[in-house]
């Protein structure tokens, strides 16, 4: 692990996990099966509309996720009372332990930090979106939970981190785990030009 990451101790991660649990308690809940089935219906409808074009559907799920993410971040900051992040590295654990827990009900694990600290992976052991789902052969180009990719991008962009996010592995495709790779592209500065 890179030098600066050693600052993130086990105790700090545990605090975030507790924070995540607390945030989870506070938010309204929805029946998990209803949620899963709604998402499944969305994906299958998109596939039908695009005549089985997996790349197009991946793209659409990404866009849908993005729109969700830009709104979700406000809800997150308001309801979670998670500590402010000092830098990009902090955001990783907060997303994994508090963000995911609050909105998906499950925590993710942060792994695979790159030397420059601009890239990491989120590992999901459980994914409520793909409960009971079995991906048919003809759709194996599909990243079923691609909406998550958009959510991460949209949310982080609102806090001035422009990132690229994509699925590396998916349990639905037969991989041993589900992995999202997050890469920092640039840190955005407030654009003051439009203020007269």
């Amino acid at each position, binding site marked *: 692990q890179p030098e600066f990451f050693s600052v993130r101790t086990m105790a700090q991660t545990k605090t975030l996990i507790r924070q995540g649990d607390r945030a989870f308690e506070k938010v309204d809940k929805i029946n998990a*099966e209803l949620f899963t*089935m709604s*998402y*499944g*219906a969305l*994906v*299958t409808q998109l596939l039908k509309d695009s005549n089985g074009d997996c790349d197009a559907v991946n793209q659409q799920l990404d866009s849908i996720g993005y729109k969700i993410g830009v709104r979700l971040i406000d809800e997150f900051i308001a309801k979670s009372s998670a500590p402010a992040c000092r830098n990009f590295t902090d955001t990783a654990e907060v997303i994994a332990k508090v963000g995911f827990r609050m909105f998906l009900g499950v925590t993710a694990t942060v792994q695979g930090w790159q030397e420059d600290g601009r890239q990491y992976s989120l590992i999901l052991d459980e994914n409520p979106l793909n409960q*009971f*789902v*079995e991906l048919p052969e003809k759709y194996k180009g599909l990243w079923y939970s691609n909406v998550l990719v958009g959510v991460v991008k949209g949310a982080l962009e609102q806090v001035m981190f422009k990132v690229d996010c994509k699925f590396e592995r998916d349990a639905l495709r037969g991989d041993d785990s589900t992995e999202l790779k997050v890469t920092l592209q640039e840190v955005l500065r407030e654009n003051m030009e439009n203020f007269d």
Partner: protein
Amino acid sequence: MASLRRRAGEGKSQQRMLYFCIVAKGDVPIFEVQLGGHAGGSAGGSGGKGAAGAGSGGGGLQQKEDLVQFILHAALDGVEHKVWTTTSMYLKTVDKFNDLLVSAFATAGHVKMLLLHDHRVDEGHIKAFFHDVHEHYLKVLMNPFYEKNSAITSPVFEERVHSLARRLT
């Protein structure tokens, strides 16, 4: 394959007749499998059964496969009749053919499960088998990619049915 042929050669009493199928609304079979001794049985939709029969020992077994189809189809009448007489999904025995019995299970969505077996299988086990398969069927239904009333092709489901069936023998 060799072991199957050996079994076919043995006396009739050794052959375990245990055939399971799920029939959707409109009498369309969506899942068929031969359980028990003959592990390499047919599976999935209608039509491939003849091929499986031919693979495991020639004409004799193929005739049996066709006969089984016929028996189960005829049993559906018995199911229709019994379904309105009870509120439980398990319908016990709905038809008889020589020394073989057909037990059935009907869900609220008119999906019928039929088990062709001989008298040696315990009723309690059959009931438990139907209920467990039903639960797995519900999970198949929950898959957004599965279209209701279409053939069940999930290998996971087939494997589960086989493992549940071991309790029956």
